C-alpha cells in the first residue's frame, strides 16, 4: 500500500496486528489471549529453559532428517520417472494419490509399526514432503527444452557431462520449487506428528502448557514456531528466485 507517496513494506501490517493483540490482551477480554508484551517477556524466559531447548532440538532433528530423506529419495525418483515412460505410468498415480490424501490418517499406522518415538515422526515428515518433490522433479525433467538436449549431443557431451552440466541445471528451478513446498509441508508434518505422538518435542511441551493453562508460554512457543516456519519458507522462496532468473529464458 502507498501512504503519503511512500510504499509501505509488504509485511508491515503485522506491526498493526501486534498492536491490536496487545490492546486486546490488556483489556483482559479473554483468558486465552494474554497481552503480547507479556508473551514476549515469557518468550525470552522460555528460550533459555532446557525443556524448550530439548523440544527445539528434537523437532529440528526430526525435521532435518525427514526433509533429508524426502530430498534424497524424492529427487532421484522424480528424475527417474521423468525419464522413463514405463516407471512414470506405474508410479505417478500413487504420487498423485498421496499428494492429495489426508496423510494424518497414516500416523496411527506408523505409531503401531515404528513405535511412539522419533522414527515415526521422521517418517511422517518425509511422507508429508516427498510427493511434491517427486512431482516437481519429474516436471523439471519433462520440461527440459529439446533443443537444449540436442545442443548437448551436438557438442559431443558425455552422458555424465550432459546430466550434471545441462539437465540438472535446466531442471533446477522446478526441483527447488518442489523442495520449497516440500519443506513447508514438512514443517506441518513434523508438528502434526508430534501432536499425535505427544511425548516428544513440542507435542510434549504443548501438553505440559495446556494441562497447566500456561497461556503466555503457549503463545510464546507458537510465535517461535510460526516465525521459524515463515523464515524457512521465505528463505527457500529466495533461493528459488535466485535460480528462476533463467527459468523464464530457458
Amino acid at each position, binding site marked *: 500500500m502507498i501512504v503519503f507517496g511512500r510504499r509501505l513494506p509488504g509485511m508491515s501490517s503485522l506491526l498493526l496486528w501486534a498492536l491490536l493483540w496487545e490492546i486486546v490482551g490488556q483489556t483482559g477480554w479473554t483468558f486465552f489471549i494474554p497481552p503480547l508484551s507479556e508473551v514476549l517477556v515469557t518468550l525470552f524466559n522460555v528460550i533459555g529453559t532446557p525443556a524448550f531447548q530439548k523440544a527445539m532440538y528434537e523437532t529440528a532433528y526430526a525435521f532435518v532428517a525427514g526433509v533429508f530423506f524426502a530430498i534424497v529419495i524424492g529427487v532421484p525418483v522424480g528424475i527417474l520417472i521423468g525419464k522413463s515412460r514405463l516407471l512414470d505410468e506405474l508410479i505417478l498415480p500413487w504420487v498423485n494419490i498421496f499428494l492429495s490424501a489426508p496423510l494424518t490418517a497414516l500416523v496411527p499406522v506408523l505409531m503401531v509399526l515404528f513405535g511412539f518415538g522419533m522414527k515415526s515422526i521422521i517418517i511422517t515428515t518425509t511422507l508429508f514432503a516427498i510427493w511434491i518433490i517427486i512431482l516437481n522433479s519429474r516436471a523439471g525433467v519433462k520440461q527440459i527444452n529439446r533443443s537444449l538436449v540436442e545442443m548437448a549431443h551436438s557438442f559431443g557431451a558425455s552422458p555424465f557431462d550432459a546430466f550434471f552440466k545441462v539437465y540438472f541445471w535446466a531442471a533446477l528451478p522446478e526441483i527447488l520449487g518442489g523442495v520449497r513446498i516440500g519443506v513447508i509441508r514438512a*514443517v506441518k508434518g513434523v508438528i502434526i506428528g508430534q501432536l499425535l505422538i505427544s511425548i516428544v518435542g513440542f507435542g510434549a511441551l504443548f501438553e505440559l502448557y495446556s494441562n497447566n493453562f500456561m497461556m503466555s508460554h503457549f503463545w510464546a512457543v507458537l510465535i517461535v514456531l510460526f516465525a521459524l516456519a515463515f523464515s524457512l519458507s521465505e528463505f527457500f522462496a529466495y533461493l528459488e528466485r535466485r535460480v528462476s532468473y533463467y527459468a523464464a529464458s530457458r
Partner: protein
Amino acid sequence: MINRPLALKLLSAFIVFGAWEIAGRVPVSFAFPTFIESMQALFRLTIEGTIFTAYAETLKPLVVGVSISAFFGIGMGLWVGLSQRFEWLFSPIFIVMQAAPLAALIPILVMAYGIGLTSKVFVVCIMAMPVIVLNTASAVRNTPASIKDMGKSFLATDRDIVLKIVIPAASPVIFSGLRLGISAGFIGAILSELKITPTGVGDIITYSRSIADYPSMYAAIFSIIVLAVLFLNLLERIEDFLFEGNNRGYVSD
C-alpha cells in the same frame, strides 16, 4: 482391449497390493495385517453399517468447516484482491498462516471451545481457509489487464467489472483453491478426530488399535484415504469440465 495406461495402472495397483499382502504374510510386524484381511475387515464394517455411521460423524465438521471457510475465504479473498489497502492489512496474516504449522493451535482451541464439534469445525477452518483466501486473492489480482481495460472502454461500471469480468475470470483459480482447501480440511478433520476426541472414523482407528484389531484399523484408514482421493479427483474432473474454455481463449494459445 484395455488401453496401456489403464493396464499399467492395474498392474501398478496389483504390485502394490501384492507387496502389502506378502509383507502381511511374512509378517513384517505383528501390527501389519495382510491386504486381504484388511479388505475383509472393510467388508465387515460396511455390512454392519459401522462405516456409514462413522462417516456421518466425520463428515459433519468437515462439511460445516469447509462451508464456512468457502464463504468467508472467498469473500475475504475477493476483498483482499480488489483493494490494495486490505491486501496490505490482511494478506500477511494469511501468508504466515499458509507457511505455519497451524495444527499447533489445536491445544488452544480445545481449551477455549472444549472437545465438541465447535473445536473440530475450527480445526477444519484454520486448515482450509488460508489457501482459499490466497488463491482467490491472487486470481482476482491476476485478471488480465486487457479485459478489464476492455470493460472500462465499453463503459462498464466498477460493479460490472467485478461481477461480469473479474469474478468469472477468477473462478477457475478460486475453484481450485476450494479443492485445495477441502484437501487440507480432510487433514484437519482426521487430525481433530485423532487428537481431540475419537469420533467417527477416528474412533474406529483408535478403538481397533486399542484392542489390537489391526485389520479394522487399516480398513478404516484405507477407506478414508480412498474416499478423500476419489472425492478430490471428482472435483478436479468437475473443474476441468466447467472451466474448459476458460483457461484457454486468451491470446497466448
